[in-house]
Structure formats: structure tokens, C-alpha cells
């Protein structure tokens, strides 16, 4: 596990939750919020390992629940399931294509709030639901789909800036060196 990658991912998750809470212009312009955690989870699942996916689900879910009225811990499982699903079948996905990222981002951005809502209802909470919820889900899905390829590129660029590439061991072995000289 590369620690720098994990720290970078957690910083992005922290900022994603902050932006979702602090800036309400998507809500005013589009009529619904945009969540960046599911697209970030898709990026993490396609590029990194299961440990990073798990840590992102735990931290991102806890931060989101801390600022929301969801029962504490509700967002963890949906985020993890979305990340695990993508991670499990990532070898079968054309993950470098924008189109694939777009579709995966849309699926995750729809699945995470729906699963969270199911868990919230199962806990006996009374969220505000109606036809406006359907529109919120549409905005979340489309917004998440558009954000996924952008986040993918951002993550790539940030990794190039902050994460050292791993040292690849060369094929040179000193014990196999042919020493030439006088016998």
C-alpha cells in the first residue's frame, strides 16, 4: 500500500464532503446536490487496492454522516459496496475509457444514495421524501457521472505531483557480472 496515495485520497474525500456541505449552488441551480464521494470511490476502486477502498468508505462515510442528520455509520456500507463492486470486477472493465468511467460513476452515484436511503428508513428515521427526491437522484446520477472522469484525471495529475513512482528493480545482478581482465 502506498501511504501517499491513501493520504491524497483521504484529503480529496475530506474536501468532497466539505464542498457538498458548504457550497449550495448546485442545489440552487440544478435543484439537487452533487455528491463527489461515489465518483471518488469509483476512481479509488479502479486505480487502487481494497485497503484504500475500505479506508475511504470508513472515513468518507463517517465525515458525511457527521455533517448530515443520517444515523452515524449509515453511509459506510453503501460506499463500501459500491467501491467493492467496482474493485471486484475491475479487470473486466475498460477502466481507461471515459465512457466506462462515466457509466460506472453514474451507477455508483445512483446506488449509494438509494442504499443509504434504504438504511436510513430501516433505522426508523423519517427523511423528507417526495417527487423532488426523484429529481435529486437524477441530479446526483448525472452529476456523479460527469464528475467521475474529471476526478480520474485530477487524481492522476495529483499522483504525478505528490506520489513518488515506485522503484522498479533492474535486471542487473552484481554476482552475475562478467569481469574481464587478465587471468
Amino acid at each position, binding site marked *: 500500500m502506498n501511504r501517499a496515495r491513501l493520504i491524497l485520497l483521504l484529503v480529496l474525500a*475530506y474536501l468532497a*464532503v*466539505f464542498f*457538498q*456541505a*458548504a457550497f*449550495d449552488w448546485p*442545489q*440552487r441551480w440544478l435543484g*439537487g*446536490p452533487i*455528491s463527489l464521494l461515489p465518483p471518488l470511490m469509483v476512481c479509488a476502486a479502479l486505480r487502487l487496492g*481494497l*485497503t484504500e*477502498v*475500505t479506508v475511504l*468508505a*470508513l472515513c468518507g462515510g*463517517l*465525515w*458525511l*454522516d*457527521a*455533517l*448530515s*442528520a*443520517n*444515523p*452515524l*455509520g*449509515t453511509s*459506510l*456500507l453503501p460506499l*463500501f459496496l459500491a467501491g*467493492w463492486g467496482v474493485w*471486484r470486477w475491475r479487470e473486466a472493465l475498460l477502466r481507461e475509457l471515459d465512457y466506462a468511467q462515466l457509466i460506472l460513476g453514474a451507477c455508483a452515484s445512483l446506488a449509494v*444514495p438509494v442504499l*443509504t*436511503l434504504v438504511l*436510513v428508513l430501516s*433505522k426508523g428515521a*423519517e*427523511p*423528507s*421524501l*417526495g*417527487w*423532488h*427526491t426523484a*429529481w*435529486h437522484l437524477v441530479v*446526483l446520477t448525472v452529476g456523479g457521472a460527469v464528475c467521475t472522469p474529471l476526478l480520474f484525471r485530477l487524481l492522476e495529475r495529483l499522483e504525478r505531483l505528490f506520489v513518488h513512482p515506485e522503484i522498479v528493480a533492474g535486471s542487473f545482478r552484481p554476482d552475475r557480472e562478467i569481469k574481464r581482465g587478465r587471468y
Partner: protein
Amino acid sequence: MFKRPQWVAFSAVTLAVLVLWNLPDRLAARVKIALGALFLPLFGLVGSAQHLAAEASRAVVPRAELERQLEALRRENLRLQLELTRAGAAFEENQRLRQLLAWRPAGPWQTRICSVLARDPEAWWQAIHIDAGARAGLRPGLPVVVPEGLIGRVDRVAPTTAEVVLLGDPRCRVAVVVRETGETGVLTTRSSGMGDPRLVDLTHLPRHLAVQPGQTVFTSGLGGVFPPGLPVGTVVDTRSVGYGLYSEARVRLYADPSRLREVIVLLP
């Protein structure tokens, strides 16, 4: 199908969810407050940036425009001072009459102006976070208003921040009265329509309804959470529900919950 690391990850997340779900309410609230405090530096940073931007925009306003605004504010101040004097006299008269009738005197509410730090990130909750908490004397249940009217009530209080549940959220039910007819009802959740976020449902109205569109809705003071007489909104339309057994109305709130920058908490 699953290999060992996947089982470990699944177990860790499931265990965390189960533990968090079974925490006692007070402990869960404390954990939420502690985790939410991690975002305070960023909220402070955004507040400072907005303050600087406002200062910068003020610096480029022409002097003539500032003088015009100052003159308008002076006139408004004079008008408000006159109204305040009249209101003070009316309040004293009210207190005197209450004493004569041996009614409990209605204490004046103190106000605390607070800035909005954040909104609830989930779409299905109508709540905001404000920049004052227990240290400023806030406690759960206090009414929150804006100049247009009632907007919600304080729910969860941290030392320096508080969560305000807005009208339209199922956790904020308000006993109201229609001023023109005197009929009482309960303001419940956001109306299920797709359009205006300011539309909320007014339920528990009597079967033979005298309420008409355009009539005004105020807090009734029943329940003791909200003081009576706070403006809430106007009736948009009415409908019969439950096979004509009772009636409901839709109310358009005076205050727009989606455009809040500052709110006023009423302290007893």
C-alpha cells in the same frame, strides 16, 4: 467467491456499522460533533474569504453610491426608531394589561444573529449548520427566524456550532393558526410536488374548511416550542383528504430555506 482480504474488509465495515448504530444516542451525538469539528477550520477559511471578498467589493463602490445608500439607511433608521418607540409603548401596555388580568407576562425574546456555515449534505434532510452553539447560550428547541418569518428550530448543539432543522423537514413540525379564520393545524413536511422548495403541507385542519388561498399563517404557540405570532407563510391551495374526513392545505413559506446566509436565533 471471496478471498480472505475481501472477508476482512467486509467484516471491518460491517462491524463498524453495527458498533456505530448501537452507540447510545448521547455518545453518537458526541462522536458526530467531534467529527464535524474537523471541518471547522475550512468553514472559518470560507467565512474569512467571503468577508474579504465583501470588503473588496465595498472598496470599488463609487462614493456617490455609498452616500445614496447611507441616506436611504438614515431614513429607514428614523422610521424604525419611530416604530420601535410605538412597539415599546404597546409592549408596556400589553404587560400592564396582562398583570391586571393576572396572566403570565410574556418575556421579551433576545436575539442572536448567526451565519450559516453549511447545509446538510444529504438531499433528504432540510437542515443547516450555524456558527453559534452552547457557548453562546443556544440549546435544542429554540426558534430560528429570518426577517421574513420563521425558518426552523435548533436541533443539535455543539460548543461552537449548532444544527438548525428547517421548516419542511419531518423533524420540525410547527403548530400554526390561519389568522383570517382562526383555524389551527400542523405544518409538517415539504410538499411532494417537484417545483417550489418553499411549499410545505399544513395538516390536521378541520373537515369543513374555511381556509382560502392567500390567507396568512402564523405560529399558534401551541406546544410551547415556538412563540405565538411569528409569520410563517400564505395558503396556496386546499384539498380534502381521507375520503373527505379531514383537510390539508399547502403553504408557501415567507422565508426561502434555499437562500439563507444569516439567521436569527430567539433566546428566551
